[in-house]
C-alpha cells in the first residue's frame, strides 16, 4: 500500500505542475509582492522604495476610508449572496422538469454566464439612467427616486441598485451549478420518498436540500468571495459614489477605483489588497465552520 503510494508520487507531481505553476505565477507571486509592497512607500515608477514598517497595514486597516469600504463590502455581500443563492435555487428547481422545451428555458436562465460584467453593467446603466432610461420612464410613478435623483445617484439606493445588477449578472452561474447538483440527486431517493407518502415540500426539505447542501455551501462561499471582490459593476455604474457618502466604495474600489485617493500609492493599495485577502479567508472560514456541520457529504 505504502510502496504503491510512493510510486504514484512522481506522476502526481507531474500532473500538478501545470496548475501549480499557473497558481505560483498568477496568484502566489503577486500575493508575495503585495505583502512586500504593503510595508513600503515607493515613487510612482517603483524605482525607489523605502520601508515604513508593518504598521502601514494597521494604519490602512484603521483608516476611516478602509473601515467605510469594509462596511460597504459586507453590506454588498449581505444584499447579493442570499438573494443570488435563493434565486439560483428557485430557477434551477423551476427548470428541473422533464418537459418539452425546457432546454430553451435552461439556456435563457443560464445566459448571463455568457454576459461580461461590463455588458451587464452597461445594460443596467442605460436602464437606470434618470433622463432617458426605460426604468425611470416607466416606473418613476411607483418609485420617484428613479427619476430624482436616480437610483445610482441616491445615497440609499445606489448600493442596492448595483446589487441588483450584480445578482442578475451572476444568476446564470448559480443556476448552472445548482442545476448540475439537482441532476446528481438519485431518482430512487425521490421515488422511495414518494412511496413513503412524502409531499413535494417534504421531498425538497428532506431529500433534495440535504443532497445538494455541499453544492449550496460551495456556492455560498464562492458568491461571498465574489461579492467581496466586486469591482467592475461599481466602477461602471457609480464610480464608488454618490460622492457625499461613498456609499458604493467597497474595498476593491478603494484599491483600484478612478475616484480612489490611494490608486497611485502602491504601498497603501497593496496593504489594502492584502487585508482584503485575509478578510476573504476569515469570511470563508466562518462559513465553513458555521454551516459545515449541516452539510451532508453522503456516505
Amino acid at each position, binding site marked *: 500500500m505504502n510502496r504503491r503510494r510512493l510510486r504514484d508520487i512522481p506522476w502526481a507531481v507531474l500532473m500538478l505542475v501545470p496548475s501549480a505553476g499557473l497558481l505560483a505565477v498568477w496568484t502566489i507571486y503577486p500575493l508575495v509582492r503585495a505583502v512586500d509592497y504593503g510595508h513600503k512607500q515607493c*515613487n510612482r515608477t*517603483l524605482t525607489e522604495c*523605502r520601508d515604513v514598517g508593518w504598521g*502601514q497595514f494597521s494604519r490602512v486597516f*484603521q483608516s476611516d476610508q478602509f473601515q467605510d469600504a469594509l462596511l460597504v463590502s459586507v453590506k454588498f455581500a449581505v444584499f447579493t449572496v442570499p438573494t443570488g443563492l435563493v434565486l439560483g435555487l428557485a430557477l434551477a428547481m423551476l427548470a428541473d422538469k422533464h418537459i418539452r422545451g425546457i432546454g430553451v428555458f435552461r439556456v435563457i436562465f443560464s445566459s448571463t454566464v455568457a454576459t461580461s460584467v461590463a455588458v451587464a453593467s452597461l445594460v443596467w446603466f442605460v436602464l437606470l439612467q434618470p433622463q432617458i432610461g426605460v426604468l425611470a420612464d416607466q416606473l418613476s410613478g411607483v418609485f420617484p427616486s428613479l427619476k430624482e435623483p436616480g437610483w*445610482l445617484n441616491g445615497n440609499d439606493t445606489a448600493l442596492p441598485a448595483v446589487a441588483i445588477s450584480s445578482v442578475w449578472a451572476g444568476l446564470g452561474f448559480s443556476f448552472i451549478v445548482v442545476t448540475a447538483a439537482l441532476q446528481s440527486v438519485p431518482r430512487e431517493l425521490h421515488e422511495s420518498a414518494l412511496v413513503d407518502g412524502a409531499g413535494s415540500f417534504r421531498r425538497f426539505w428532506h431529500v433534495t436540500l440535504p443532497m445538494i447542501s455541499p453544492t449550496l455551501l460551495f456556492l455560498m462561499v464562492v458568491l461571498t468571495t465574489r461579492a467581496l471582490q466586486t469591482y467592475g459593476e461599481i466602477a461602471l455604474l457609480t464610480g464608488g459614489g454618490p460622492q457625499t457618502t461613498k456609499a458604493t466604495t467597497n474595498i476593491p474600489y478603494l484599491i483600484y477605483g478612478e475616484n480612489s485617493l490611494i*490608486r497611485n500609492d502602491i504601498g497603501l493599495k497593496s496593504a489594502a489588497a492584502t487585508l482584503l485577502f485575509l478578510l476573504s479567508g476569515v469570511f470563508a472560514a466562518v462559513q465553513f465552520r458555521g454551516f459545515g456541520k449541516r452539510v451532508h457529504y453522503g456516505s
Partner: protein
Amino acid sequence: MRARTTSRRVAAFAVVGLLVAACSGGGDITESGDDDGTTTTTEPGQTLAPTTTVAPDLLPDCPTDALESATGTVELTFWTGMSGPLAEALQALTDEYNASQAKVKVSLVNDTYEGTANNYQRASQDSRPDLVQMPEYMVQAMVDSESTVPVGKCIDSSGFDTSAFLPTALSAYSTQGVQWGMPFNISNPVLYYSKKAFAAAGLDPDKPPVSLEELREMSQTLVDSGVVKYGLALDSNFDGGGGWYIEQWFAKAQEYYVDGDNGRTNRASKVLYNNDLGVELLTFLQDMINDNLAVSVGSNESGQDDLLKLADAEAPAAMTIHTSAALRGALDVLATGIFPQLTDPDLGIGVMPGPDGAPGALIGGASLWPVDSGDPVRIAATWDFLTFLVSAETQSQWATDTGYVPVRTDAVDVEPHKTTLATDPRFRVAFDQLEASPDALTSAGPVVGPLSEMRVVLADAIARIFEGADVKQSLDEAAEQANNLISSYNTSNG
C-alpha cells in the same frame, strides 16, 4: 469535537476582533503611508526649499539629425489615451504619416488616459513606448519619472519654429524653464446653452452670459419665464465642475491654485483653493442651487448627464458648462433628431462665464512626451513624427475631426478647419477664449504630483457643498486631505 469548538471560537473571535478594530482607530487613509514617526516627512503646507532651475545639461539630449543615419525602417510605438472616434481620427493621421515616408513606421496602442498613465509608470525601461500621450494632470509625475526627452531640447537642436503656437499651449507643459511635453490635443470648458430657451425667455440667443453675475441674472430670467426649470446644470465630477472648472476659474481670476507659483517655479507643497476666491466661487454656486436657479446632476458618471439636462423633457436646464472636446459628438447626436426639444441649430456655445467676465481658459487635454530610449535614431524618428502631428495641416484636420482646439494659430487658416470655423462658429469659441488668456503664470494652471487624486478630494467636497454643507469648512477639509496627498507624493518622488 473539542478541537472543532475551539476553532469555531477562534473564527468567531477573529470576526469580533475585526469589528472591534473597526470601531476604534480612525484617521485618514492619506496619512497611512507615514512612517512610524522615525523618518521626517514634509509637513503639509510647509514650503520646501526653493528648487533651482533645472540645469539643461543634466537632461537627455535630443539628436534630431540622427534619423539620417538610420538603416531601414524605424518602428515606433505610440501609447495614446484615445478611444472611439478620437482613436480613429488619430489612426487616420498616423496612417497618413506612415504612407508619406518610408523611414519611420508608427503603431498606436490605445487605452484610456488613466490606463496609459498607469501602464507607463509601471513599465520597466525596456518596455516603455517611444512616445506617450499624457493628460494635463500628469505633468509633474512625468517630470519626476525622469524617463523622457524634453521636447524643448528637440526644439533647440532642430531649430523647430514654435512662433505660431498658442503661448499658453506651450507654457502649460513647461516648468522651471524647461519645455517638457508637446501640446497636441487641447480642450477647455465652454458654455453649452439652448438658444431656443433663451429666445423663449426673451433673452438674446446670441448673447450668452460672460460673467458670473450675468449667469445668475439670465438664469433668473429663464426660470421666471417658466421656459425651463433651471438656468444652469452643474456637475461635481472631478474632471468637471468638481475640480477642473475650479482650476479654470482661479486662472481667470489670475490667482494661483497651488503654491510655488502653481508649481511652475518651485515644487508645489499645498493648495490655495480654500481662500477667499474659492469660498466666494463655491458660495455663488451653492446659492444658485439653493435659489433653484441651478441643479446638480451629481458625479456625472456617464459624462453626459449635464448635457442631457438641456434636452430633458420634464425638468430641463438652459445652460451647462462642459468640455469643448464633446462638441462634435454632441452635434452629431442632436443632428439625429432624437431630442425634439433640442436640435442641432438650437445648441449655442459661449465662453465659460467667469468672475467679472474675465477672459481666458486653462489648457486641458493632453500632450506628447518622447521617451528617452537611449537610442538616438529612435528619438530622432519620434521627433519627426511629432513635428508631423503638430504641423498646421495636421492640427487643422485633427481639430475638425474631433473638436479639439488646434495648438497653433495658423491651423485655423488652413483647410479643412478654415471651412469648419467659417460654417460653424461654435467651434471657434474654445480657441478664442484660449487666445484671450492673460499673459501670466496663472494662465498655465497648477502642476502638482497627485493632481488627479486632489481633484477627487475637491470634487467630493463640492458635492457636499452642492447638498448644503458649509463652504469654508468643506474647502478646508479638502485642502487638508489634498496637502496630505502632496506631502506623501513629495516624500516619495521629490
